[in-house]
């Protein structure tokens, strides 16, 4: 290998007025992330996000393990949303192996993935609260998500990192009496999160700090290829659960939350509205789920596809569309696994939004992008 510098790696020479500031790489919310900002007085003139401090080489690791042993490590990028991170991979492997999933397993998956979405969003919301110095908003979501974590523990045996989805269904059937407990907890959870409006979303201080900061117009949201709550907060009605329903989402009534403003406030509110929608979906799924039946198709050891094939599957995760591109060359190990994650796609909006913004607005803009450093780095 050459010792020459890579193109563009040399340090930039900057104007005398302009100061370069390294924000990080510490642990600002979750996962290490560095943002290099250049400021002129109080205003940001340029911003260069520098992810990669938690790069773990998931995609390389996936090439060395077979389709089943890949499951526990591929969910690591977002442990709070582990079902959703695994979802496209599992769907892709099912297409490669040609497996049909039992009906009950599909409903269990939908329930698990909606519970995970809420668990993730609550954690994200707690950090958003503490980013803005609102400690109540840190404590409340961090406490209330325990309700749902308990449910996931009942369902899968693990509080986080469930490794519950497997090609062919889910690992275990629901425990006895789960439906009743789930319904009760979810109803209470919904009642609780509605109370957040009074303390957080209608709070004049929050509104003053986040309204009209970091405005992303509809055109730019599309052009930059953002996804998930960032996209929906800019007025684009796009949710994969509705647009490209996977598993049984086409049998459920899914409402998409869209806001037009495109500022930090809208971006922080859409995930909260999505949580209430998740509660609706869980209630519908509990009602429509077949009361008994198999939840898993047994696979042969070391399953493999028959021919060279590529699949690209995507699901709506807590941070937007999450795609998984699998290249299979008829061996037990995948030839290539690529995760296209929402955090990485939304990161491109950060330099764009921070330009011209005040330095004090950086935390609210940064975390409103629904960005999860560990997921972006993979």
């Amino acid at each position, binding site marked *: 290998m050459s010792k020459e510098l*890579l*193109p563009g*790696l040399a340090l930039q020479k900057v104007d005398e007025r302009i100061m370069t500031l390294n924000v990080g790489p510490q642990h600002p919310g979750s996962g290490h992330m560095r943002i290099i900002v250049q400021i002129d007085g109080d205003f940001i003139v340029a911003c260069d996000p520098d992810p990669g401090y938690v*790069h773990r080489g998931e995609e390389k690791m996936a090439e060395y393990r077979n389709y089943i042993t890949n499951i526990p490590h591929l969910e690591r990028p977002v442990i709070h949303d582990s079902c959703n991170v695994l979802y496209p991979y599992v769907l892709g492997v099912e297409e490669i192996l040609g497996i049909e999933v039992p009906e009950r397993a599909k409903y269990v998956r939908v329930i698990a993935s909606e519970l995970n979405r809420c668990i993730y969003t609550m954690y994200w919301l707690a950090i958003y609260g503490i980013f803005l110095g609102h400690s109540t908003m840190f404590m409340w979501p961090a406490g209330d998500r325990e309700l749902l974590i308990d449910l996931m523990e009942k369902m899968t045996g693990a509080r986080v990192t469930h490794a519950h989805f497997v090609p062919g269904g889910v690992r275990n059937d629901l425990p006895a009496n789960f439906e009743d407990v789930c319904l009760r907890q979810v109803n209470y959870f919904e009642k609780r999160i509605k109370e957040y409006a009074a303390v957080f979303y209608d709070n004049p201080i929050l509104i003053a700090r986040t309204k009209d900061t970091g405005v992303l117009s509809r055109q730019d949201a*599309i052009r930059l290829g953002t996804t998930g709550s960032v996209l929906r907060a800019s007025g684009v009605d796009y949710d994969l659960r509705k647009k490209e329903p996977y598993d049984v989402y086409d049998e459920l009534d899914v409402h998409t939350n869209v806001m037009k403003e495109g500022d930090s406030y809208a971006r922080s509110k859409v995930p909260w509205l999505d949580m209430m929608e998740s509660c609706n979906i869980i209630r519908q799924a509990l009602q429509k789920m077949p009361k008994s039946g198999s939840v898993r198709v047994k696979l042969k050891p070391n399953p493999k596809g028959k021919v060279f094939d590529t699949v690209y599957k995507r699901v709506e995760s807590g941070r937007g569309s999450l795609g998984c591109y699998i290249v299979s060359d008829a061996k037990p190990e995948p030839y290539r696994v690529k995760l*296209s994650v929402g955090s990485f796609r939304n990161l491109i909006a950060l330099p764009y939004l921070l330009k011209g913004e005040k330095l004090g607005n950086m935390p609210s803009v940064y975390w409103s992008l629904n960005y999860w450093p560990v997921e972006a780095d993979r």
Partner: protein
Amino acid sequence: MSSDSENEQIETTLEEKPVSAKTSPAPAKEIELPKFEKGIADKIVEKFGPKVKVAFVKPDRVGINVGKEDVTEVAEFLRDVLNFDHAESVSGVDYPNDKEIEVVYHLGSYTDSTLARQILVLATRAQREENPIPGNDATKLPSLREIFYSVEFHEREVFEMLGVYFQGHPDNRRLLLPEDWADLPPLRKDFAIKGR
């Protein structure tokens, strides 16, 4: 109806499509190409002819292979005429046996509601070097950043992970790897994980 496969293909074009797709997935497995997706592929082939090879037509997915000298032109057509407006993902795949590295763009559309389910898989290949010098060897492709702004970070990732230099990309720096990474680009097949 199910006895003759050719008859069925003709009939399904006349009947309503969703019925045949939903009720009988098993017999329709081999013959029936999804109509809408086939239309997209046909439009591209009609415009570019032999420059473009249709790799596959599956439900909601159309895959095309393009040579690197035509990829910009094809991408412009996809954006301006077919309304694909953003890239979901850019993946690099190393094929040492073919001595090539494939770069796969997954394009989607937010503005055109008929394309909401569709992903267009645009694949192009660059020459692979045995002893790569990232940025200074023949492993180069034209960047699509001018056409799809959203590929900016994805192409940076492909550059560091596979050593494919994107000509015309404004910011060809490392993104995830350390600045002083001096080994092979790690997603190449000849980069081995220790102990495996």
